């Protein structure tokens, strides 16, 4: 199910990309430290094995913590104030509801509130995503919350290489970064990233050029969009895919440039539609390109409900690649109603 790699090219999985980024960052810079539940090798190197091997190699720079998310993020914040670059793992994104105060009232704000005297170069890695049958408390995409908070950066990769390069950038960024890993695509593969190569934060990436319609989003649906773009090109439909990579701060410039060119946009994300991050993208596009748009900007997202357990309902919940395709066609065929 790899989106891009040629069959025989050397590829790695997302999980491997995360692991390599963590390893390389720790190797490059001794101020990189790590904490989270079960992450040390005595505990098997993390429930998702992303941190496997790190504590063996880097000793007490990698620490397993109690189940105490407030203590985890707080310790990361404190250590960062003293010059470290801590990477904290919050096992699943639904549990990020627990340390919200540390993240929002402290990590994101201390630089501003201290007048720039201190700053909080932490990375919070978390994992989530629906589709694996884990139900209402283990699947939520909550990136929109953090995008609404100034001072923190929100990053969602869509390829293993980006995952590697963006995670490195988060770790070496001087501000708090929330890095979201997708549970469902973790074993999917893509081309191997170049060691040490950082993918810049705050810059969207035109993953595929096109002229008829822009698909704008981040994370898993970008992989769908790339496949769709291939398919639709066979019909002569030229789809441009803009992968935000960093959800916030939003690289509106790149988005607007693309949509100014195509005149049509479909905004995609996995999170529920209403009050999701996609709304902001739509709002920006119409604010700046009103009059240049040939169709309304459509959104494809999951439904506004709790993630259900039953597969049939979970599939009802989730955005669909077919929905992206339908939206693309809809924007292309749009005629003013009368």
């Amino acid at each position, binding site marked *: 199910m790899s989106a891009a790699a040629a069959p025989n090219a050397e590829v790695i999985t997302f999980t491997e990309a995360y692991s390599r980024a963590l390893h390389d960052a720790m190797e490059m810079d001794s101020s990189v430290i790590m904490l989270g539940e079960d992450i040390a090798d005595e505990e098997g190197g993390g429930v998702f094995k992303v941190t496997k091997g790190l504590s063996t190699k880097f000793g007490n720079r990698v620490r397993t913590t109690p189940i105490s998310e407030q203590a985890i993020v707080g310790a990361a914040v404190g250590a960062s104030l003293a010059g470290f670059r801590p990477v904290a793992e919050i096992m699943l994104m*639904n549990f990020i509801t*627990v340390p919200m105060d540390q993240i929002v009232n402290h990590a994101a704000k201390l630089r501003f509130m201290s007048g720039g005297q201190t700053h909080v170069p932490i990375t919070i890695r978390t994992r989530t995503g629906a589709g694996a049958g884990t139900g209402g408390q283990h699947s939520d995409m909550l990136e929109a919350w953090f995008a609404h908070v100034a001072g923190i950066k929100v990053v969602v990769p869509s390829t293993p290489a980006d995952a590697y390069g963006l995670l490195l950038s988060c770790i070496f960024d001087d501000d708090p970064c929330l890095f979201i890993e997708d549970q469902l695509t973790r074993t999917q593969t893509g081309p191997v990233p170049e060691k040490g190569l950082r993918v810049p934060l705050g810059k969207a990436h035109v993953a595929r050029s096109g002229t008829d319609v822009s698909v704008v989003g981040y994370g898993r649906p970008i992989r769908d969009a790339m496949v769709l773009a291939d398919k639709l090109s066979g019909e002569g439909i030229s789809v441009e895919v803009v992968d935000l990579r960093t959800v916030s701060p939003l690289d509106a410039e790149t988005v607007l440039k693309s949509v100014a060119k195509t005149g049509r946009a479909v905004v995609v994300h996995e999170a529920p539609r209403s009050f999701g991050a996609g709304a902001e993208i739509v709002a920006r596009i119409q604010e700046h390109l009103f009059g240049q748009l040939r169709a309304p900007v459509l959104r494809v997202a999951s439904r506004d409900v709790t993630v259900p357990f039953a597969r049939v309902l979970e599939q009802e919940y989730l955005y669909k690649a077919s929905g992206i395709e339908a939206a693309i066609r809809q924007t292309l065929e749009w005629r003013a109603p009368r």
Partner: protein
Amino acid sequence: MSASQTFTPAALLAVYRKARLINLVDERFRVLLRSGRLAAVYYSPRGQEILAAAMGVHLEARDYLVTTYRGIHDQLAKGIPLRPLFAEYYAKATGACKGKGGPMHITHPETGVMVTTGVVGSGLPIANGLAWASQLKRDGRVTLVTFGDGASNIGAFHEALNLAALWKLPVIFLCQNNLYGECTKYEKATSVANVAERAAAYSMAGVTVNGNDPEAMWLASGAAVARARAGEGPTLIEAKTFRFMGHYFGDPGAYIPKAEYQAALERDPMPACRAAVLVSGASTEAELAAYDAEIEARIDDALQYAADSPPPEAQEIERDIYGAAA
């Protein structure tokens, strides 16, 4: 606790029967999972049957239970019927939660199964609320909330125990200390030798018992239920136990030292309890075999029920988001 609570052979048998129900259901689930006939995240309670059963025999149907993802033993001990339970694991429309919640969110108010949560520690503050309701209504109900050793290190534990003690709520905090939280050893996560020692930080009654010992667990549970029922406030029970099947189904448990695992296995509470029942004279081999057969039949029935049930309709996704406007 009323001084008259003595652990009779009949009580032992009652504990055993509940524990055995748990044991057989758990075994069946693991067979189904291994064979691929069930696909669901599953957190086996194997090894923790006795403590749930010994608590369960003291509770009434109207009492409340708040439990966790690893809660099937608690739910069964509380009396949840098998059909809606199995059907929920199978994500069927006839499941307790119509297939919408799944194993991690089993709910069955008729038998007092009020909340099953997948978030560590979150059940404790909610249990206080149920107990607060009982205190206000003076309805004599007791609320039991169960959680693991790992959960005793999260903030919600602290806030909940403090409030329960202050308000003298009829709630029992049952910490099932199976020595691991996921892959992390108790000592690496918890700064105190026994979780129940933390009760003193709230001037709360607290006791550490061998949760695998039917008598000790029955006595501690009885005392806590009696205390709550009498309006004398909450209790923290720490039941020491062990989980034999790793954190989740499929977890190879490589982080558990072999010797530790072996030693625990030799103290497996299920065979020990069965032997004790026979020694006590409360039941015969034949009776126990018949009970097993009865349970297996009920399990077969529930499985068949689940298999025969339809999945939820797609439109079910639109329901139960909000109620009718008041």
